[in-house]
């Protein structure tokens, strides 16, 4: 009987715990080419994931987002596929000394060598990884990325027992000192660092206007935005007041009291988990202002579009310029366009992924989709927000 109870207990623990053994293969390379727009490129160094035995030449600027579950035991097989020493420091994960990735207190990984980093993701939250060799320089060259650790119960809460979210955005801010990336052999005095680009997830300016970073939702949504900085200065995120931004976590820990604010300053190495609970329609931008902490002068500003629609009541649909005729839908989505300025409608998944786009004309339109079952957002830049549609 006792054995049976024990068996049931073990079974329950197994079923409710989603933590597991995780193995990843990462490489570092020093031959990346970063597109800066208009055919302009510069050099970058960085990290990339791969599946052995194939080792591709691809690395990413910035490094790939690593996603773990709280309690995961993680082994990262790191191949330094480059001609110089590198490491991976697990910023904020509080790993043991041997796996901390600092040359003087743990170890470096020599060129064309490898090692395994092993650690447990003990807390849910937002973290970073970066090379800790000659960090002042290697960070500007691009050797960093973001880590998200989900609580063990669900991917839709920010920490165990914490608030749920309906969609999420992970934003890693950083800077680029173009002069260093153009001349990595002789970058000049490190103390004379000057940022030339303010980046978000490795993109800047017009590159961020391709729709891939847009926040699109409705007033029914709770939108998690994870903020992080691997730059050198101050990054100020300014949300529209109607977004009702709240800080819930910082540096991978829940804060004692939620702070409601539309302006959040993030300094190098800091992270914040923010929830947006929009209270009204929004057709605006999130401003991201990069400043030099030495001069307090502004370096640049990026803007991320945010479109929030009110809940899809008919009269509000008309206010938005379209009405959905038949929602939920299967295969074909019928839309009535009231506003002749709306010429294109775009469908996004709830996590912001572009699913398709179609030209429309005033009156009734039929959009043919091959969407899987689920909830999606339909949007046009001419609309006052986005509308939620359900495919079945």
């Amino acid at each position, binding site marked *: 009987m006792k054995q049976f109870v024990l068996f049931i207990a073990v079974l329950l623990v197994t079923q409710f715990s989603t933590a597991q053994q995780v193995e990843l293969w990462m490489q570092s390379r020093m031959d990346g080419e970063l597109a800066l727009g208009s055919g302009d490129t510069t050099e970058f160094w960085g990290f990339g994931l791969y599946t052995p035995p194939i080792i591709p030449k691809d690395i990413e600027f910035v490094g790939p987002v690593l996603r773990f579950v709280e309690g995961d035991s993680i082994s990262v097989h790191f191949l330094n596929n480059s001609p110089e020493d590198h490491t991976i420091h697990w910023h904020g994960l509080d790993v043991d000394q041997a796996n901390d990735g600092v040359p003087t207190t743990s170890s470096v990984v020599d060129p064309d060598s490898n090692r395994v980093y092993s650690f447990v993701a003990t807390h849910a939250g937002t973290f970073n990884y970066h090379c800790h060799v000659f960090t002042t320089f290697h960070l500007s060259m691009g050797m960093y990325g973001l880590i998200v650790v989900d609580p063990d119960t669900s991917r839709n809460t920010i920490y165990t027992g914490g608030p749920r979210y309906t969609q999420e955005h992970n934003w890693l801010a950083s800077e680029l000192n173009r002069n260093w990336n153009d001349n990595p052999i002789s970058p000049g005095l490190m103390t004379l660092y000057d940022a030339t680009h303010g980046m978000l997830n490795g993109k800047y300016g017009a590159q961020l206007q391709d729709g891939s970073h847009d926040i699109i939702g409705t007033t029914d949504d709770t939108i998690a935005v994870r903020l992080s900085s691997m730059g050198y200065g101050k990054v100020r995120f300014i949300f529209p007041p109607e977004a009702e931004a709240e800080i819930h976590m*910082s540096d991978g820990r829940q804060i004692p009291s939620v702070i409601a604010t539309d302006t959040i300053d993030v300094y190098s190495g800091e992270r914040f988990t923010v929830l947006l609970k929009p209270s009204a329609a929004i057709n605006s931008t999130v401003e991201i202002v990069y400043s030099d902490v*030495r001069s307090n002068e502004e370096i640049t500003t990026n803007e991320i579009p945010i479109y929030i629609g009110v809940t899809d009541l008919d009269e509000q649909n008309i206010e938005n310029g379209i009405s959905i005729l038949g929602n939920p839908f299967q295969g074909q989505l019928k839309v009535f366009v009231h506003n002749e300025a709306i010429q294109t409608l775009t469908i996004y998944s709830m996590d912001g992924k572009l699913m398709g786009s179609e030209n429309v004309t005033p009156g009734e339109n039929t959009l043919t989709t091959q969407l899987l079952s689920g909830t999606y957002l339909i949007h046009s830049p001419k609309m006052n927000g986005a509308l939620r549609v359900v495919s079945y």
Partner: protein
Amino acid sequence: MNKIFLIAAFLLGWSNISKGAVIDDTLYIHRDTVTMAELLVNRCVLNPTSTFEKRNAYIDISIGDDLQLTIINTDSIAHDLGVSNIVSLGTVNASDTVTFSHTFNGFGTFGIAITSTLGYQLGAQATVRVGIPNQSFMWNLWEMNDTLSLDLGNGITSSIPTDYYPNVNTINGEAHPETVADTLGRVIGNVGDSIYISVVNSGNIVHTIHFHGYHVKIVQATQNTSVINWTKDSPVVQPRETMTLLLVPDKPGMYPVHDHNLISVLTQNSYGGGMITNITIQP
């Protein structure tokens, strides 16, 4: 009669218990050129003796103590003083001596700082640790550009320019690796200890202190008080802010702790210098 006497004695005793002690101390304002982080700089400090030292002084007192502080200004110019941007103490003229009084009613780390321009720029700020238990460490941060400091000291310029490029980045007056030999700054303890770290930003820019291996609790701060009781691995310390951090290590190890504004971990052009020290935790 006896009852009245007892009440009077009780009130006298209560008065003595609830009121802190009067603490007399003396600090000297010194300004001189000195080598810091391998470069010659003009440095202004509050020292405990008449001999110039590049490190600012610290004073340990209890909560409620009344600090009667005599300031002896050995400099050739007058300086204004204040307590951590909380209260202005007044002015000490060149070659003059003034005694100030301030009662410290709250726990934590505070600064006795020169608030007038030159002394502020050149990093003059002593630390007052109020009610902090014995196992405590202190990081008094200051960054500067060597040439600029000499120009400021010589009156060639009077302000920090927008093209400010600090190349002297120090903790308690030292740059890494010398910081590791500083017993006040290098944190040594055991797993489970309650280790208090007083952080004082005497510099001109914000510094973000990143802890490897551990998170710390911000138990007190004088400017951004909204972060009190937050647990962070990268607390942010604004210019002239003072802060008390509590570290309770959960594992042994030797880890670096450093400014994550990575231009501050340089000594001249060498990476691995500047604002870095170590935390060593035994089992």
